[in-house]
């Protein structure tokens, strides 16, 4: 029984399975528009954001970890001192996600009834900062210190063998908060995954206040009033950030192969490497002719695809799904918004292309280190 559960979890944890599932789950858990919201309501997913839902969520997580800890492989990876903060982070993120969503749904219910949100209700009353806030903060930092001291006593800070530039550990991992980026390296070249995307992420985050010109939902928890913003944010934050980081930490072993949480990190594990560039795919497999030597001619398809993706999709979206958004944001903001969104979506798309068609690069010009 336990074995087959583990087998199932190992199977389900594979990004090929888990990532699409999460993507779809996010879509419905945080519905971006009214249609999706209706489905959400019909499925009763919102019930997770209640006390009962919370208890369920945390019991489930707790049970999973308790069950997991009986397995030596799981224990090994989860209790590694440097991984402990990530385990804690998983609980914390889920807790605060639940906390915020619970308040949001409660407020939404109030607003639906024509009442102001809870915060507005509270804000009518003014409180002197001394002593309430100061005291609360004081207690918080005492607790925080206690946590830190206890943590320091309980877990030794890791120190491995002395640095040796000629022996690289397998796998070599970046610090845990960069593992999302490292996970992206599986699908994108370093110049994209390590430089361009982080820059876009940083700039994109800075752009949020200027792209989200929805006047509502400022200063209180609400979901209904900013469905789309929250939906996109959850996709970026939960799926592309926290999830990829977790995968990189727990599920990537030697040779950066995937390993289920209950799987032994076998250094000999082999995965078939049958990836192929788009140009080769088109010329060799579809057109059955030699790949042209001229770089431009060779990669024309890739450039075409990219051009369409970044040029045509925004226009199509503006005419269809995002008609309102386009109206609301204006051309410039809309272009930036869609560009950022398409960048974010390029990762799942690239993943899909890799998994479905073994596509390695859309555009491959290794001569100039220019691979997309």
């Amino acid at each position: 029984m336990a074995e087959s559960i583990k087998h199932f979890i190992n199977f389900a944890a594979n990004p090929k399975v888990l990532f699409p599932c999460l993507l779809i789950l996010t879509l419905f858990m945080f519905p971006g528009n009214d249609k999706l919201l209706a489905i959400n309501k019909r499925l009763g997913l919102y019930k997770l954001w209640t006390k009962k839902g919370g208890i369920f969520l945390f019991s489930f997580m707790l049970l999973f970890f308790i069950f997991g800890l009986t397995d030596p492989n799981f224990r090994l990876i989860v209790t590694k001192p440097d991984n402990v903060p990530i385990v804690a982070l998983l609980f914390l993120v889920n807790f605060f996600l639940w906390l915020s969503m619970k308040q949001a749904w409660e407020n939404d219910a109030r607003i639906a009834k024509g009442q102001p949100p809870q915060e507005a209700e509270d804000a009518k009353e003014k409180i002197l900062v001394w002593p309430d806030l100061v005291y609360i903060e004081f207690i918080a930092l005492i607790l925080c210190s206690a946590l830190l001291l206890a943590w320091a006593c309980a877990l030794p800070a890791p120190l491995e063998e002395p640095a040796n530039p000629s022996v690289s550990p397998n796998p070599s991992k970046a610090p845990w908060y960069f593992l999302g980026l490292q996970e992206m390296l599986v699908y994108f070249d370093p110049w994209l995954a390590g430089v361009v995307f982080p820059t876009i992420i940083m700039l994109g985050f800075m752009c949020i206040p200027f792209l989200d010109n929805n006047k509502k939902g400022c200063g209180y928890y609400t979901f209904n009033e900013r469905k789309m913003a929250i939906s996109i944010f959850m996709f970026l934050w939960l799926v592309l950030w926290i999830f990829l980081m977790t995968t990189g930490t727990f599920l990537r072993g030697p040779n950066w192969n995937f390993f289920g949480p209950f799987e032994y990190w076998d250094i000999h594990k082999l995965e078939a490497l049958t990836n192929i560039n788009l140009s080769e795919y088109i010329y060799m497999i579809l057109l059955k002719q030699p790949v042209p030597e001229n770089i431009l001619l060779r990669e024309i398809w890739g450039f075409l695809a990219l051009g369409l993706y970044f040029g045509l999709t925004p226009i199509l979206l503006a005419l269809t799904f995002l008609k309102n958004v386009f109206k609301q944001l204006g051309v410039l903001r809309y272009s930036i918004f869609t560009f950022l969104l398409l960048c974010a979506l390029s990762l799942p798309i690239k993943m899909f292309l890799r998994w479905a068609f073994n596509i390695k690069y859309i555009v491959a010009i290794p001569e100039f280190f220019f691979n997309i």
Partner: protein
Amino acid sequence: MPYFDSGESLFEKFCKTQVGRAIFRTGIPRNQRQRMMIMLNGVFLHLHPVRLPKHAVKVKYTWCMGGLSFFVFLVLTVTGILLMFYYRPTVEYAYGDIIDLKEQVPLGLMREIHRWGAHLMVVTVWLHMFRVFMTGSYKPPREFNWVIGVILLVLTMLMSFTGYLLPWDQLAIWAITVGSNMAGATPLVGASGPGASLLAIGDVNFITSSSDARFAMLGGRFVGEGALLRFYVLHCIGLPFVMMIFMIVHFWRVRKDGGISGPT
């Protein structure tokens, strides 16, 4: 005042002396005026306004994450300064000094506090950002402060990243190697990035492994002596200095943009 109401304490007596008055202007805040004055008069408490709307005091609204981030930053500063007494950032000594922190230095647990504090700070900063997003607090007039916040978040991760190298063990140099290799792939100015060859003139390459973005970061062609020193300096002086400046702006802006966010 329900608390502190057990007659005149020794501290209260002290507050009434000339020295006491000189230091604690307000004395123990027993009435409303005093409670306001203490917030106004102290340089540290002045960070907060005198009064707040009620929701802003509720932990379930604020999660306390911003304050905790700042507090952990302070803890890291103090423990970091103490660690610097025993740590020498050279390839000869760094690793041994870290061992000694555990084996020999009294209360070398300081290193554990520092390391786990660093992890904690990354977590609290992320959660702070999460909360700010969920309450829509980046919306006007707080757009700019959100931008500062993002910068601070990046700086926090850079602080952690630079500190990661200092123990000079396998974990450290390979994590930094993986991380810094990405810098080498920077378009145009990374030796193994796209377009580096475009900057060549004739047969002369201008972007090489000893003149690219990665080199500027590591002070060498690979993670070695130069990288250790650069990361040390950035970790201990450079980044904290920049971070301080942004934190000042951040806090100032919190107050100037109308205090903690709330429904308007």
